[in-house]
């Protein structure tokens, strides 16, 4: 078999941008970007958050109108006026933030996005086509499930299927793997390889270097809105790309100092809770967390991680079992009570669960502590003090833009996460519960978050880290718990295990499937 990478240079250009420039008020998001995408290639757009990758993708998808420059598609200059225009031409896009109708089922969502609009809505052909697509790509999914019942990973699949369903020729994926488990990522790679062999082109927006190397034929690097260079992936290393992307050397390997692990202080005993569909989401999960320990949670999305996080955040009712915090039961306590015990939560769904997008940054920074004395002056909020604190936090966590009165919805993904971190971590803590804290963020921010978590560990804070990034779990965790079917089936000592073992365990095909603590 000839590697497609060898012949890619001979593939015709499918889409080309010439001096593409896009401004938002005074910010130049794309500055004279000229690059091309070939037919039948997987082309990564690499760059940090705010580098202009997504903006460029949205311009190609017709979501934004370009201010100057040209887009040529199949050799002809096109003036993309809307996403539907782009879809008609064969350009499809899967967004980082899903555009699904949550109360509708998978099938209904697909049918609505379908290009073949008929007066009467008949779901049967859609369903048939979807079933064959799912079978073809080996995707197991309840097509009648409502979107809100699906995990983030499953919702991403619906998005990808939506584009595939409409038969696009150029598929743009904006951070597609952010929500997927390693296994699902592999599956996605297989699917995209198949699509590529059928002559499809894929633009893969990412900032994960491993993915670029593992996966793409060519890679284009953007930095601060400017196009840096395009490489054949086989010609570059991760380190070279990282340097191009950030403009400086980056520490890719985390050095974790040994910290003596303290007493166990947080214990879960046979905890059970229902999921949104009323089924058993958690069936008897148990673990002990020690002071100064990072306990990682691995598992394929939808195996109870979300339910466990929500139980620990106090927003999901417990059906059976016990949670002991410093020896006292905190079962079914409210989020406010749990917060008062020094527990911080970093939710995976920043926009819906972590922030109020229509609030200012300063307002979001006091969410949860609005009644604390430091934020009050008598019965009123102490606006001046809140702004002073916000400015400090913004500086401390280098949040951009550095103005506390900015509307939160104008911030980039990495800065949204920094707002949450600033709010959650900047107080006396005993425990941090982080769900996918680095998902969708660029290397600079990830490096920063990892450092913060390790610093907290040094201060004897116990950390529960839910992550779908196994590299991250291995780099940070002292122990790794694997969740499967609502249970913690095993807890490994990180130094005594490896990815293969964890991966097998995640798939539930580990021979010794008994619940064990330690």
């Amino acid at each position, binding site marked *: 078999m000839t590697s497609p990478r060898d012949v890619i240079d001979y593939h015709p250009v499918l889409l080309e941008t010439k001096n593409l420039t896009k401004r938002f008020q005074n910010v130049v998001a794309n500055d004279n970007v000229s690059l091309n995408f070939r037919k039948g290639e997987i082309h990564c757009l690499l760059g940090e958050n705010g580098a202009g990758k997504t903006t460029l993708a949205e311009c190609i998808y017709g979501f934004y109108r370009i201010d100057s420059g040209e887009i040529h598609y199949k050799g002809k200059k096109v003036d993309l006026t809307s996403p539907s225009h782009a879809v008609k031409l064969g350009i499809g896009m899967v967004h980082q933030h899903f555009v699904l109708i949550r109360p509708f089922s998978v099938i209904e969502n697909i049918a609505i996005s379908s290009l073949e609009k008929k007066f009467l809505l008949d779901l049967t052909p859609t369903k048939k086509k979807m079933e064959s697509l799912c079978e073809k790509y080996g995707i197991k999914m309840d097509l009648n499930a409502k979107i809100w019942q699906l995990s983030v990973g499953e919702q991403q699949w619906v998005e990808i299927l939506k584009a595939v369903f409409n038969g696009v020729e150029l598929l743009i994926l904006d951070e597609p793997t952010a929500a997927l488990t390693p296994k699902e990522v592999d599956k996605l790679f297989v699917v995209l390889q198949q699509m590529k062999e059928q002559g499809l082109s894929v633009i893969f927006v990412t900032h994960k270097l491993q993915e670029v190397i593992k996966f793409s034929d060519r890679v284009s690097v953007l930095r601060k809105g400017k196009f840096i260079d395009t490489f054949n992936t086989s010609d570059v290393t991760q380190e070279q790309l990282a340097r191009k992307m950030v403009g400086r050397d980056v520490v890719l390997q985390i050095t974790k100092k040994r910290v003596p692990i303290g007493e166990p202080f947080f214990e879960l005993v046979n905890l059970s809770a229902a999921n949104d569909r009323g089924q058993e989401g958690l069936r008897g999960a148990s673990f002990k967390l020690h002071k100064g320990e990072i306990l990682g949670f691995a598992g394929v999305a939808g195996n109870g991680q979300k339910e466990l996080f929500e139980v620990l955040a106090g927003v999901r009712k417990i059906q059976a079992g016990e949670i002991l915090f410093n020896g006292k039961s905190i079962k079914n306590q409210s*989020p406010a009570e749990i917060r008062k015990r020094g527990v911080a939560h970093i939710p995976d769904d920043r926009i819906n*669960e972590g922030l109020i997008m229509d609030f200012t940054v300063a307002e979001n920074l006091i*969410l*949860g502590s609005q009644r604390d004395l430091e*934020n009050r002056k008598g019965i009123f*909020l102490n606006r001046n003090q809140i702004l002073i604190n916000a400015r400090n936090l913004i500086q401390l966590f280098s949040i951009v833009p550095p103005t506390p009165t900015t509307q939160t919805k104008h911030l980039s993904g990495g800065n949204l996460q920094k707002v949450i971190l600033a709010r959650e971590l900047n107080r006396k803590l005993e425990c941090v519960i982080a769900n996918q804290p680095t998902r969708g963020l660029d290397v600079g921010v990830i490096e920063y978050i990892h450092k913060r978590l390790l610093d907290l560990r040094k201060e004897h804070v116990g950390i529960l880290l839910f992550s779908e990034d196994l590299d991250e779990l291995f780099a940070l965790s002292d122990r790794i718990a694997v969740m499967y079917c609502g249970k913690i089936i095993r807890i490994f000592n990180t130094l005594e295990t490896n990815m293969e073992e964890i991966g097998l365990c995640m798939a539930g095909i580990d021979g010794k499937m008994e619940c064990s603590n330690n």
Partner: protein
Amino acid sequence: MFKQLRFKIEKRKHVSSLVQLISLSAAIILSVLITGLLMYVGKVNIGAGFIALFDGAFGSWKACVETLLKATPLILTGLATVIAFRARIWNIGQESQLYFGAIMAYLAYTQFIFLPPIILIPIIILFAIIGGAICGFIPAMIKAKFAVDEIITTIMMNYIVTYFLSLLLSTVWKDPNHYYEQSPTILEKFRFPILLENNRLHLGFILAIIATVIIFLLISKTPLGYEIKAMGLNPIAAKFKGINLIKTMVIVMMISGALSGLAGAGELFGVIFRLKSTISLGYGYTGIIIAMLAGLEPLAVVPVAILFGGLLNGSFLLQTTTNIPSSLVYVIQAIVLLFFLSARAISNYRLRIVANDQ
């Protein structure tokens, strides 16, 4: 190259105040035009019609004061809507809360009639507030316990309270000297004090202004107001960060009800002086329109309520000078609401002319 021009609608990233001003002016002009058209259809001299409308509302000192009098209950029901809608609680029960406030106020009046006015009037006000709050509390608890939509329960409360009032007025509180379902008149010494000589503007107006300031401070400056806004904008994040949604909802419904209840006492003890089933001329529902037009901003409620009070008064003069029925005012209110809401929605978008290459 031949270029075809076509229009494209885009969402604005930022809506400037100029755009807002233009769109609101357009809404006013269009409202006036449609109203004029209605007068024309009604075969009325349009000029005379508008002059009557304006004179009735703001044409004289007396008219202005009367307009403030009419605005008084509207300010309160408007505020009641603002605080509920800010929390995304759809309280449509202002009418029931207003009436139950009036009922409780009248109860206090009949029970403590032996007290001097200086003591009884504050008690009356307190009872009206409690009455309205109770009437907001009931649908709130039904929602908290059984997750029943508050839109349905608050509308149902409107009927329940109206019929309950009818029951009271045909039995225990009926004026024996009258055929109608109404109570005896309130003794003069217990009526709300008049603010200005030879006018009807009463204590209730001052209370409405105080309420406006309190609600403004509550929403924009206090932790509770912060929680109300957080709950309205993103209940999931609010819940995750420890805001008790049910508790906040119950509090908001009680405050909202209390404001409407106060409006009921004002009308009973300041204008009508008898408990009857026509105390409110749909003030509860008009309050919803006013709150929407005020963009759910407490301070904006006052000018909008005064404008609507003026419309009510103007329409009475319109009826006496022309033969257009005063109920035209409800048509005008609806027209104004529709145009303003449309203007606000439209100002979020812009029209761009784009070239299509052929």
